[in-house]
């Protein structure tokens, strides 16, 4: 899908380009719907049915139901929209950062503080 163009590789980083936008459209559209409190409640009532309503594929659905952020990114999720899903579960950016880096939340926060030294 990359038209033969070489993509820039930055370790641990995905640029949300056309390939990602194509792959992740249904997942991101579902997350965009979480701007509405009514939709958030509907999702919590039956998560699987809500994923189906937005046409998520098996990979996306599995990633959402297991709440694995790296898997959601691999399935085309965009950080800004995924944050709305995280918000439903009360996850802040340090929770999400810790999960993705395999660190404890305390260790992740310490890493952020260390970056300022």
């Amino acid at each position: 899908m990359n038209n033969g163009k070489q993509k820039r590789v930055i370790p641990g980083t995905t640029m949300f380009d056309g390939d990602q936008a194509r792959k992740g459209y249904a997942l991101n559209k579902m997350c965009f719907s979480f701007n509405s409190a009514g939709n958030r409640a509907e999702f919590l009532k039956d998560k699987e049915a809500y994923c189906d309503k937005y046409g998520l594929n098996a990979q996306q659905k599995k990633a959402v139901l297991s709440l694995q952020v790296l898997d959601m990114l691999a399935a085309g999720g965009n950080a800004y929209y995924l944050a709305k899903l995280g918000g439903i579960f009360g996850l802040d950016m340090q929770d999400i950062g810790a999960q993705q880096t395999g660190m404890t939340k305390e260790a992740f926060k310490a890493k952020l503080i260390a970056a300022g030294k």
Partner: protein
Amino acid sequence: MAKIIGGISVTHVPYIGRAIAHNLQQDPYWKPFFDGFPPVHQWLAKVKPDVAVVIYNDHGLNFFLDKMPTFAVGAAPEYHNADEGWGIPTLPPYRGELDLSWHMIDSLVEEEFDIVTCQEMLVDHAFTLPLELLWPKQKSCPLRTVPVCINTVQFPLPKPARCFKFGQAIGRAIESWDSDARVVVIGTGGLSHQLDGQRAGFINKEFDLMFMEKLITDPLWVTRYSIADLVELTGTQGVELLMWLTTRGALPGEVAKVHSNYHIPISNTASGLLAMETV
């Protein structure tokens, strides 16, 4: 003609909204961030702008991937904030400045910036929080506003050099507006941070500090970098520094630094504040 009194660039981390709502300005975590603002408040009280052109990036409140403009300009009498899904308070509406909006639209398209125009436009935390920080404890923002949105959600993003030129075109539009208004340009976002991927938590203090210094003395410095370079150097969301660059482009000629502040971390972000006065 309208006068550009200066520009202010500032971080827009959503949790700032919660800190303001809970009066945490003096809390040890937040104090180094909020302490940056009083000198800028004093300057604003002196220069008294009455219109703010706010250059920001939407995070999935007004725009979705179904239609994703690279550059969009608001042309609404009023701009509403709304539920963004992550539990920060929704703020009261902001007054528009329709004459400037349409003058900017005419002028920008004439200069071949084929922007999207929005007669209805929800504004997210990236628009609202900087105004809250700069004009705190008011029932509503005392300035009339024009939102300018730049895509940082879906790549390709506009190149740094293009953003600088876009800013210059915004500056020329403001300065050719037949009005006695005093205009401040506000750019929001950054500085270095990355929310997603195994590299989440990436921050680059050295680059940020260099960028802030060069924005005053040599704003074209950062245009040597591609968007991919900036992602590598500042993180996937650090590219929001494009708002700072666009703001600097809108300021005519040389600028003097009024005040700056830089603190790590606010949430996962290196927070920055830079007020610049036109000379």
